């Protein structure tokens, strides 16, 4: 037996574990604050259920295995499909809209990258039964709030609308090869490939102009871009997509995140099951999106009566990396490390009763179970970065490590002196 773990998974412990858990809780709390109720879907389900979403990349990256009765199961690669299943199959007769939030591990058999192993954490929210732009705006605004709450200030939300592109494709009536060529060019934002497409593909003037204009439909000037796009509408679908996008942008007005929005009508990568608005959140120092979401009005209907839906998932691991890179070791992001005091009960039942009382008061206290003398306790405390040692002498005597690393007797324990123990920051302790 060796101690190896499979490629793509990792142990998290001490500060890293607690700060991940804290971030997850904090993000969940953002959604709960807007009326999103917790949902805990299964870790694995029937492969056919989880494959109901149409993202090929996601599907090819699923961990599949056989149940003992021979049915194919998969580890969840995301939460949206399980939650859509729940709403479609079981909660379809409950009043709409319904709001759900979740947090936990998802699994993808993909190359590990910065801030993403094959098992990684997602937090997200899904809003069902609300087709109007106000619902999309709520999800976008929640994403921004969650990012700010996570301590990220310089993020941008890159907002696109898959319907604009799909409707354009309808209008162009391309064969599959031409479609592939256009998609390649747009995915890569490659001017030469787009030129090749325009050279190889016979198009009417208006259609040609619509394609030629695509690269300009990217940027911070939301109004200007939407107006430009409106001049190249080829059919009803493109018109409706832009109307919808304008509605969403207008609805964002009340949320104070206008400055964070970038429009990109050519972002068509990884759009899987989206049917309307789609977006990604990016932040300096991390080359990949830390959150992505959008509208998926077709998914719930695969499990029950159709329902419009919009949602977002944030990558906890990537947010951690992004925050680290943004702030370095800035105190603002230093998570609270629990520094439980070490109590030496000296075999006294009274001591243990007192410890229980202190714990009920919210203090974190570990009890010596080795019958250590004070020296041994000091040595352990010094090596493990503990500051407070409590020795029972008919009441706890409080010893505290000073700046030089020596333990000093402060006298009988006063609870207030320990009160900070659960919230003290590491930096404060180490100085």
């Amino acid at each position, binding site marked *: 037996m060796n101690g190896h773990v499979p490629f793509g998974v990792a142990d998290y412990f001490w500060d890293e574990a607690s700060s991940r858990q804290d971030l997850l809780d904090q993000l969940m709390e953002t959604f709960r604050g807007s009326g999103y109720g917790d949902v805990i879907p299964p870790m694995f389900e029937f492969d056919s259920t989880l494959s109901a979403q149409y993202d090929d990349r996601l599907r090819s990256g699923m961990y599949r295995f056989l149940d003992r009765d021979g049915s194919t199961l998969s580890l969840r690669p995301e939460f949206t499909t399980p939650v859509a299943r729940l709403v479609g199959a079981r909660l379809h007769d409950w009043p709409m809209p319904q709001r759900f939030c979740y947090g936990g591990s998802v699994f993808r058999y993909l190359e*590990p990258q910065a801030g993403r192993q094959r098992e990684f954490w997602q937090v997200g929210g899904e809003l069902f039964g609300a087709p109007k732009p106000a619902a999309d705006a709520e999800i976008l605004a929640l994403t921004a709030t969650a990012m700010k709450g996570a301590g990220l200030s310089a993020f941008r939300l890159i907002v696109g609308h898959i319907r604009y592109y799909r409707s354009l494709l309808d209008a162009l009536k391309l064969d599959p090869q031409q479609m592939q060529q256009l998609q390649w060019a747009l995915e890569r934002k490659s001017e030469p490939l787009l030129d090749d497409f325009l050279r190889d593909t016979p198009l009417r003037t208006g259609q040609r102009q619509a394609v030629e204009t695509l690269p300009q439909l990217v940027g911070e000037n939301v109004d200007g871009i939407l107006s430009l796009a409106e001049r190249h509408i080829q059919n009803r679908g493109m018109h409706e997509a832009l109307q919808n996008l304008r509605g969403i942008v207008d609805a964002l007005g009340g949320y104070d995140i206008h400055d964070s929005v970038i429009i990109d009508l050519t972002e068509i990568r990884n759009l899987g099951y989206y049917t309307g608005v789609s977006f990604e959140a990016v932040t300096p120092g991390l080359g990949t999106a830390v959150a992505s979401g959008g509208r998926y009005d077709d998914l719930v209907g695969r499990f029950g009566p159709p329902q419009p839906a919009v949602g977002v998932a944030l990558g906890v691991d990537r947010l951690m990396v992004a925050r680290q890179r943004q702030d370095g070791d800035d105190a603002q992001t230093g998570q609270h490390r629990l520094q439980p005091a070490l109590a030496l009960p000296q075999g006294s039942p009274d001591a243990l009763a007192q410890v229980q009382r202190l714990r009920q008061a919210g203090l974190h206290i570990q009890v010596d179970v080795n019958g250590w003398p004070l020296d041994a306790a000091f040595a352990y405390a010094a090596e493990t970065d503990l500051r407070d040692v409590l020795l029972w002498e008919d009441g706890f005597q409080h010893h505290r490590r000073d700046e030089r690393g020596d333990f000093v007797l402060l006298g009988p324990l006063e609870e207030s002196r320990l009160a900070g123990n659960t919230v003290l920051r590491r930096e404060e302790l180490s100085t």
Partner: protein
Amino acid sequence: MNPTMTAAHRGQTDKVEQSLGATTDGQSEQSLLFALPKGRLAQDSLSFLERAGLSIPTDTESRKLILPAADGSVGFVMAKPRDVPTYVEHGAADIGICGLDVVRETERAIYEPLLLPFGHCRLSVAGPAEDAGVPPSACLDVADLVDRPTKSAHLPGRPLRYMSQPRIATEYPRLTRQFFAERGVNAEIITLGGSVELGPILGLADLIVDVVQTGTTLRMNGLVEVRTILESQAVLVVNRASYQLKAAEINRIIERMRLLTT
């Protein structure tokens, strides 16, 4: 997350900030980090940047890992050509130059707005010319096989799908596999780190897939080109997040370069 990776990344960021005095608010004022390929494309890349009117590092021989541009506006990192798309995908660099062959082989999620007018070459399948000396070790194999696969390489016009299971030495395993798979050939790919033209000589492989500029190296080793997989040239690549977050600077660079490419 792998702690050593994180530490390395952090170290890198620190260096950038020291050498560039980057602002810490993470907004668009932040300087760009530009990844350039070492080796074949290095000099062409630098002179192209210069012709585009962009400030380049004064001292490229320096041992410093990150070189500031003469006017301090941009930092440059000289990377192995293969690593440029990786740096850019992960955001370790915002923007970079490398060969299209490398971009297609590594298939990273990056933007590639412009092809640049240098570094032209092609990725080709090559095999032994008819008169190439066959080493004794390979001759033993020939005796066992009625129709040795390499024979088809002797006929550049002959469809590759007639080869049963060619062994192919290459530095481009992904493109090679894809090229042969599309023709229904189940090729055995032997991935090498360089000098792939040795493959057929040593009897390690039947064919090679490699970058060809003038064809001199192939001829010297008794090889002829059989097919072209990809016409390659230098390409500008951009990180997807930086493209949006640092749009102003990156668009400025693209504009300048576009003037030289069209």
